[in-house]
């Protein structure tokens, strides 16, 4: 039997996602210099994390599912870090 997430948690995640959308829009209009894009990415990563954990049930899934989800992030980091380490150091 798969784990059933309580409706209350879904609504809480939903409300947090909407709130974080407002926050990311608001933050974008303040000038933090080069930090702006990183703030936007941190908020987006937080939103993605709660979608993965609750809507996509990873929090309640076997370790093997965790491994696959983390593998996706890990390979994305390899892609970004190796590519940008070239362009940023020219």
């Amino acid at each position, binding site marked *: *039997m*798969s784990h*059933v*997430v309580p*409706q209350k948690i*879904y*609504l809480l995640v*939903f409300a947090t*996602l*909407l709130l974080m*959308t*407002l926050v*990311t*829009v608001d933050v*974008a*209009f*303040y*000038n*933090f210099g080069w930090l*702006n*894009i990183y703030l*936007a*990415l941190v*908020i*987006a990563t937080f*939103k*993605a994390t709660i*979608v*993965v954990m*609750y*809507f*996509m*049930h990873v929090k309640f*899934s*076997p370790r*093997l*599912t965790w491994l*696959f*989800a983390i*593998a*996706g*992030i890990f*390979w*994305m980091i390899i*892609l*970004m870090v190796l*590519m*940008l380490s070239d*362009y*940023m150091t020219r």
Partner: protein
Amino acid sequence: MSKVHSAVAHHFEDAEQQREAATLGMWAFLVTEVMFFGGVFGAYAVCHFLYPDAFAAASNKLNVVLGATNTAVLICSSLSMALAVRAAQTDKVKQIVPWLILTIVLGLVFFVIKYFEYMHKFHEHLFPGASFVFEGPHGAQAQLFFTLYFVMTGLHATHMVIGFGLMLWLIVRARKGHFSSAYNTPVEITGLYWHFVDIVWIFLFPLLYLIGRA
């Protein structure tokens, strides 16, 4: 038919193992999707790093209100998808189809808003190509931004169209009574796909709409 679908294939120990294998297969596919979108996100990262001023100027041509509204619409559709899966898991089988229809309708609302955004960009000569016009010093690099804008949002929209197809298939099967707490794997893994598409947009929205606003 539903008996056939709920049956455990001979190479699985039980229904639970079969369900976990299907879910894991979907996750393996989603990791390849992360890599697929990783290519364009990588291109974006490099271009944004090389031409930050042009990207800021070009991003300001996009409509933040429409972009934020579409983000909210997709979050709503993710919730209704999650509730469709939950309806199947909790044997509320009559609720599966309404939640799926709501998910599709919200997806279509996203498309209507996107249509008006695209049309507006066409009229403003911001579609890359021979008729591209961008005032100021960053014309060529701004065209690069809009190329990425149309490629990224276009690929995202393509994924949504595939999602509509999957949900229509689920609606047909749900009407035949195929899904219950005992068997709902297709609903579950279509849900995974739809939430993944939502996550792609969660990253696209700030990267395309919100840079250089301050």
